[in-house]
């Protein structure tokens, strides 16, 4: 059976909130929160293992990894950190607005978060482009002599492999987040969220802050360990 788009709107959860399997709204909220955290724990385990592997190799090949960090664009990394921290701030204000039923403010903060998220991905793309031009991409065009004629330590290729794997996985999470955020903006504009029902905004906030949290650790790990 095909449901027409006009009916999808009326079938939004706020009309059947709390859902029949829950005692009350609070129980549904707690259940959603625990579900989201369970998912985030799997993410912690996944990215944590990559961090562990990175440090095992960094302890082994200290000089090469320091050299790798020095070839990254710390300035762009810093700007991206500011952008992402700011987007976390606008997101928490969106959650705050949703909880108080301030629909206009909610849409405004969500749109701002969306713009900042796009800015992050754009800056990351610029960085990738520069790194491609400097022959830093293993598997594509990595060279052991840099564009300035300097000889790169052999294991720096390993560092760059980690760099691209970790930042690409992070950027992928950003893109998924932006897609969900786009949908939430549409629903928020239609008035799907109220002071009583705003779990999706709350849960998306958790995801968005988690992606920010991963970057808070990725940034010093990749860019700032220079000694």
């Amino acid at each position, binding site marked *: 059976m095909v449901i027409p788009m006009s009916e999808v709107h009326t079938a939004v959860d706020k009309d059947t909130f709390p859902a029949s399997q829950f005692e*009350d*709204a*609070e129980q549904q*909220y*707690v259940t959603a*929160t*625990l579900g989201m*955290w*369970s998912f*985030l*724990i799997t993410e*912690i*385990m996944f990215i*944590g*293992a990559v*961090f*562990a592997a990175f*440090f*095992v*190799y960094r*302890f*082994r*090949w200290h000089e090469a990894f320091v050299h790798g960090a020095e070839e990254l664009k*710390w300035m762009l990394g*810093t700007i991206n*950190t*500011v952008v992402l*921290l*700011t987007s*976390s*701030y606008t*997101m*928490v*204000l969106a*959650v*705050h607005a949703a*909880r108080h039923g301030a629909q206009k403010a909610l849409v405004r903060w969500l749109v701002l978060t969306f713009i900042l998220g796009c800015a992050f991905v754009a800056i990351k793309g610029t960085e990738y482009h520069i790194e491609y031009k400097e022959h830093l991409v293993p598997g594509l065009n990595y060279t052991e002599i840099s564009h300035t004629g300097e000889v790169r330590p*052999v*294991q720096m290729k*390993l560092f760059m492999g980690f760099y691209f794997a970790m930042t690409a996985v992070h950027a992928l999470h950003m893109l998924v987040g932006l897609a969900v955020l786009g949908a939430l903006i549409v629903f928020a504009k239609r008035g799907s969220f109220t002071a009583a029902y705003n779990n999706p905004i709350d849960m998306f*906030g*958790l995801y968005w*802050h*988690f992606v*920010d*949290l991963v970057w*808070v*650790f990725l*940034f*010093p*790990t990749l*860019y*700032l*360990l*220079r*000694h």
Partner: protein
Amino acid sequence: MSHERHEPGVKTYTLIYFGLLILMTATVAAAFYDFNRILPGHSWGMIIAFAIASVKGLLIVLYFMHVLSGPRRAAVFAGAGFLWLGILFVLIFCDYASRQYPVNPRGEPRYIWQNDPANAVHPTEQASHPA
């Protein structure tokens, strides 16, 4: 709502946000100074960077992710996640710190690709690490 949630207000969020920016500036500034020169040991850059990152992470988790003001069960879940991460790190790093894994100059384990000249074992080395 059956329970009143004591969630932080806009003022708290703003304070946390500026706190995060200040900490970020501190971590970038610290990265350009070699602390090993003035302090004993050789991992101070990493220790300082991760101490600052942990404080930033804690602020995000406790305030932005509402672990402080949200349901206690969520705090237990979050705590469990980070506790397991700690176990992962401690066990892996203890293992690597206390053993010698033979590697070739590319950092790969020596037992793979045995025909690769990079995996050749020097006779003196073989004497000190019997297979």
